[in-house]
């Protein structure tokens, strides 16, 4: 496991997640240990149904583990009340969704600004500064007044990235952010995320696309709800997994 707990923003210890399914139980995650340091740019890779989304939801505090520990920014999520977990999401986490999930009735600017409006500690001027900066960084300054419905898929995901980053979260989670995009657009989105990562934001996203995996610095492999590979360093299994995915 990791060396030195100080900088870890995400720590999963022996985490399991069971879903009741009729009379049976689905063991979606069966004892996972993951540790992400600040500034990491990691991919969670695995075949369909392997538990990628489940793990991301646990880290994203939108779901709670059946057993084990999920520690986000030093806080054990199991000990938190629902409202406190919500607060943790607001202050620490950013989400990029597979289907972008922009608020349809708001324009681009307002969508990016939205998470800041949930925070009481950021004034109007600061909000504007941050939104404009991020919109510029995702290259959509010209489309500021457009609604999500008037944007392309790639543009929408850029808006979503800007929105995820506008609160300056410690961790950005993205569940298959490129799955709904063509490969060229997916590449540019990936590139954008990497740029953002340079500022120190930790990124964790899931994929089963080898091209995406190739872009990551660390590829955590998951299969049948268990970590197959923590993906440290030049792990020879990376290529094998990529080959396997093909």
């Amino acid at each position, binding site marked *: 496991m990791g060396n030195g707990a100080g900088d870890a923003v995400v720590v999963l210890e022996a985490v399991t997640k069971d879903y009741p399914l009729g009379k049976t139980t689905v063991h979606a995650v069966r004892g996972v240990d993951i540790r992400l340091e600040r500034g990491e740019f990691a991919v969670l890779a695995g075949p369909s149904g392997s538990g990628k989304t489940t793990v991301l939801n646990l880290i994203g505090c939108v779901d709670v583990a059946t057993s084990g520990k999920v520690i986000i920014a030093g806080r054990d999520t199991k000990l938190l009340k629902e409202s406190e977990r919500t607060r943790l999401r607001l202050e620490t986490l950013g989400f990029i969704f*597979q289907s972008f999930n922009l608020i349809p009735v708001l324009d681009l600017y307002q969508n990016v600004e939205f998470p800041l409006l949930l925070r009481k500690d950021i004034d109007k001027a600061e909000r504007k500064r941050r939104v404009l900066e991020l919109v510029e960084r995702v290259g959509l300054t010209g489309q500021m007044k457009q609604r999500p419905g008037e944007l392309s898929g790639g543009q929408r995901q850029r808006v979503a990235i800007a929105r995820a980053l506008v609160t300056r979260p410690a961790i950005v989670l993205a569940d298959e952010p490129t799955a709904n995009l063509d490969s060229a657009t997916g590449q540019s989105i990936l590139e954008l995320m990497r740029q953002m990562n340079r500022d120190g934001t930790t990124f964790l996203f899931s994929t089963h696309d080898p091209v995406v995996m190739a872009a990551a610095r660390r590829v955590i492999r998951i299969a049948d709800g268990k970590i197959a590979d923590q993906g440290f360093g030049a792990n020879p299994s990376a290529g094998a997994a990529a080959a396997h995915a093909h």
Partner: protein
Amino acid sequence: MGILLRIALRNLRLHWVRTLIVGFLLTVGTWLVVVGQGAIDAIHAGMQRSVVDTLSGHLQITSGAAKDDLELYQSAAIAVPDLGKIADFGKVKSVLQSVPEVDAVIPMGLGRSIVWGASSIETKLAELRRSINDGTSDKRPALIAHVRAILKSMTGDLDKLQKVASDTKETDAQKADLARANSDAFWQEFDKAPLDALEFLENRISPLGVQSGFYFFNYVGTDPGAFAKNFKLFRMQSGEMIPEGQRGFMFNSNYYERFVKHRTARRLDEIKEARELTGATIALDENLKRMVEHNKAQVSQITEQLDPVKADEVKVLLQKELGSTEGELSKLLVSFLAVDDDNFQRRYDFFYKEIAPRIRLYAYMVGDTISLYGQTKSGYPRAVNVKVWGVFRYEGLEKSGLAGVYNVMDLMSFRDLTGLSEPVSAEELASIKAQAKITDIPREKAEDELFGAGTEVVTAADNKTFDDLAGRDLAGMRKLAEAAQNAKFSQADLEAGPVVNIAVFLKGAQASAPGTSAAGDAPLAKATLIDAEQLEVSRLKVVDALKKAGFDMKVLPWSSAQGPLVGGLAAGISIFFYVIVGLIFFVAFIVILNSLLMATMERTQEIGTIRAMGAQRGYVIRMFAIEGAAMAVIFGGLGLGLGALTVIGLGASGVPATSEILFFIFGGRELHPLLDVGHLAVAFSVIVVVTLVSTLIPAIAAARIPPIAAMNAKE
């Protein structure tokens, strides 16, 4: 907050069909609350005016021993309520006037008499009697001709009756009387002793005539001067007030028009009213059609009243008017009265110009004398003759049947008629009998003794000519009755005696009458009416003063004194209104609830996303609440604005009363709803509560959407 409002407004715009449906309901609901309340307030004021300023005053006082409740407008009841009596009005009055709040005190008694409508023979005999008394002999031949024509038709009627009657003995006697009256010999003798002949005709023949039904005359016995002065809607319509210190009767114009007027004329009036008031047409309105048919079927009511000369005049006029050569008057009248929408107005005018002056337009006219029959509490029949002095109306309420219930009579006649001045209890009666050494009076004799104003036993006088009638000095009795009818009295007599109830007007309440302006129905400011709290305070002071003076009395506010009918009506209108408003808002509630629940499901991912991004549950609830509030403000505001405009508009133009009962409820010819800031506040509160409550359930459902809902890929 800004962003939530923006989201809310955008959502409203996005789902514009839903927004319009909900918005329509909310607007209509709010509009209705504003207008309805304005109308209900005006109705309360109107009803107060209709009750207070026609009959009740602000307070009504009855004896504490009253067995029944005072129900001024309980006209449907057959029996006059037993209200006991207030033995000495004057004493109570002075106690009442010592209360500073009391403005006027009016003595009253409510009663009802059956009056048999005069048959055509009675009416003609009365005219004949008048011509004999006046000594005007020029009209007499025509009158006699008319009487004889009626007698002939009565003989025919009696023949028909005899065929179906079981007791032929009685009809045989009647036939004999009629034969005698019809004989030339009788009329040759007539001029020799016309009054005796008249007595025979009036007593033996008149009862055989077909009476034109009977009337229930409701009356309030009162001090006519005080009554006219204090009941602010009172106006004289024709004739004159009963002079001070004199006995008499005044018709209520509504009663007079509806029940005393010639039926044919009345029906024509009703057709005219319906056409003007509600725009009904004879062609389409079954009721009007029926009235036309009745008029056609009852032309005898006109022909009977025309003596041969007048009948001829009318025949010629009708022939000309109708361009007809028909020689029979009744056939001409049938085709004349077969009115339609095109010729109605012309025929109506013709009727009043040519026919009405030749017939008796009202069964009782100013100057006539009415015999009112009543019964004392102890059960003795009484009769009082009263002169009709005039016809009064209630300003604005001329068409209200309720306001038309009571005619006015002087209090002295009322006391005689109802035996109010006499002891009522069995013990009292027994003690009087003992004093007078009267052991028992058979009912039939009691009638003689107590009949009319006469308590003296009328002594028999010889009457050779009409021996059947011997044993009664009929002319003497008639004179006695006339003397009683014309007897004057002083204000002190009037005040010192007993009354049944007392109307009290309070100070501080300005006239609620619309004034005497030509416009009649100036909009009535709410402030001019006495409000319930002020009334209650004054009422308690009156109660207190009476108690201190040792009187046991019931003091009722006008709202209770009017009886359940009117109060129930007001309550009914309010309830109807609240049910309608309730229904509209219930539908709005269901539609909002339903559409927002659907919207919640549609927006599951969006809400999940917002939650995932760190919005608390409360934020989601607020999001929905603001959407509801936005609807409430937009459509509630629209409804308030439209409602206020409607009320102001209606307040200025007035809502015309289109049915008989509405005149009473409106307190006049028009209702003028009043805009009140309180109404707007109530309406707005209602709409806010309705929208918020209907938003709450979907909002809670939305707040339960877990953030994980954001993760479910949709595309």
